[in-house]
């Protein structure tokens, strides 16, 4: 399968949404009969909220970005005074941290056990739960949209996606999985409903995923895409599987309950564990 990758969160798109304002402020918002979309740069990546409902209130989108910025302030490893950095330096005790922070760190521990140590918030030598925080915060953003009565939406946080309903007026969302070797190609297309899609690979930010046992990036694997109900878990699984490398990733992801995966190995073969329900 091959097609040209189109960064639809940037372009006006096939969806018939209004064009970006040519001299915009810091955010980009568009409205038309079919809904609302906005891109903001948060947590070091562009985050797109695409709501496909005509009656959606823009205030809900504001709430979503307010939430995401709060998460960034609290969890960023780049912000000196963030709770995560203060915990890491021993300035803040875990029991005094925000309950949400404790919840995330507990989930990190669970996932570390579930993934046999391959998802490790301390893999880089310091506390860095960002591998979970991104997906988790997007899941919570989806909850905000859902609570406001919105059923047809997508949130794309730097290539990791949470979807609900359909891409009105189209009958479904179509997600292309970027080929890790060639951005011009789509390795696969998936049409999920009410699901999350997370891709982990060496191509996103250089070799940022390390095998926690060897402290080296895996060499025989290009990317792992995981599809399932929650983005936090899908993302953590994708990261863990990628860290395992090669065949181990393919075998491990094959046994995940409720989560489907596609692994692309360095020799470009694709072990078949891709059973997305139609």
């Amino acid at each position, binding site marked *: 399968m091959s097609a040209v990758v189109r960064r639809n969160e940037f372009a006006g798109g096939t969806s018939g949404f209004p064009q970006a304002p040519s001299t915009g402020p810091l955010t980009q918002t568009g409205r038309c009969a079919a809904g609302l979309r906005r891109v903001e740069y948060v947590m070091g990546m562009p985050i797109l909220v695409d709501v496909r409902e005509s009656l959606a209130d823009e205030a809900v989108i504001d709430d979503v970005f307010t939430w995401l910025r709060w998460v960034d302030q609290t969890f960023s490893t780049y912000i000196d005074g963030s709770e995560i950095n203060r915990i890491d330096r021993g300035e803040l005790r875990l029991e005094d941290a925000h309950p949400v922070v404790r919840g995330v760190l507990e989930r990190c521990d669970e996932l570390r056990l579930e993934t046999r140590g391959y998802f490790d918030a301390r893999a880089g030598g310091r506390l860095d739960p960002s591998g979970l925080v991104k997906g988790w915060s997007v899941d919570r953003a989806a909850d905000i949209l859902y609570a406001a009565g919105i059923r047809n939406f997508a949130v794309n946080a730097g290539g990791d996606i949470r979807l609900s309903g359909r891409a009105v007026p189209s009958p479904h969302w179509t*997600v292309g999985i970027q080929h890790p070797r060639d*951005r011009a190609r789509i390795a696969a297309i998936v049409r999920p409903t009410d699901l999350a899609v997370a891709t982990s690979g060496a191509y996103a930010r250089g070799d940022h995923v390390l095998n926690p046992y060897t402290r080296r990036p895996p060499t025989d694997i290009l990317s792992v895409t995981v599809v399932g109900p929650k983005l936090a878990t899908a993302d953590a699984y994708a990261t863990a599987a990628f860290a395992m490398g090669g065949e181990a990733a393919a075998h491990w992801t094959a046994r995940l309950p409720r989560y489907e995966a596609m692994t692309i190995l360095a020799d470009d073969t694709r072990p078949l564990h891709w059973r997305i329900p139609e």
Partner: protein
Amino acid sequence: MRKFITVLLTVLLLALPVADAWATTKAAAKKKVVTRKFSGSVVTVDRWGTLQVTIVVRKTTVTTGTRKKVTRKITSLAVPVYPNHTDRSVFINQNALRTLRAEALTAQSANIDLVSGATDTSDAFVQSLQAAILKAKRT
């Protein structure tokens, strides 16, 4: 790169029309075409290095009486500076940039709503491109 960016790839696919004064008189239309090159800002791509985009813009001014119509069109796009400090990043980024160039210059319509995968280079690309477009609009 911790900044909000306004993303304007779409603008590339269009001319940027600016209608000026309105007039009642009808006279012979005068057409003036100027082609200029604009450089975008040099943007750092995490630890990979830096990236810069330049665009060539053809500005067409049609004057009919006192009414002026300005159309701008991007005729070509180049990436003179891109990250290449290791062999690996050269491989990744050359592929990425070739794709982005093609994307920017043609109106594609692969029927895809969203892409799961990487973002890094394209962010910097868009940021630099935006700076170049804004420069072009000021002339």
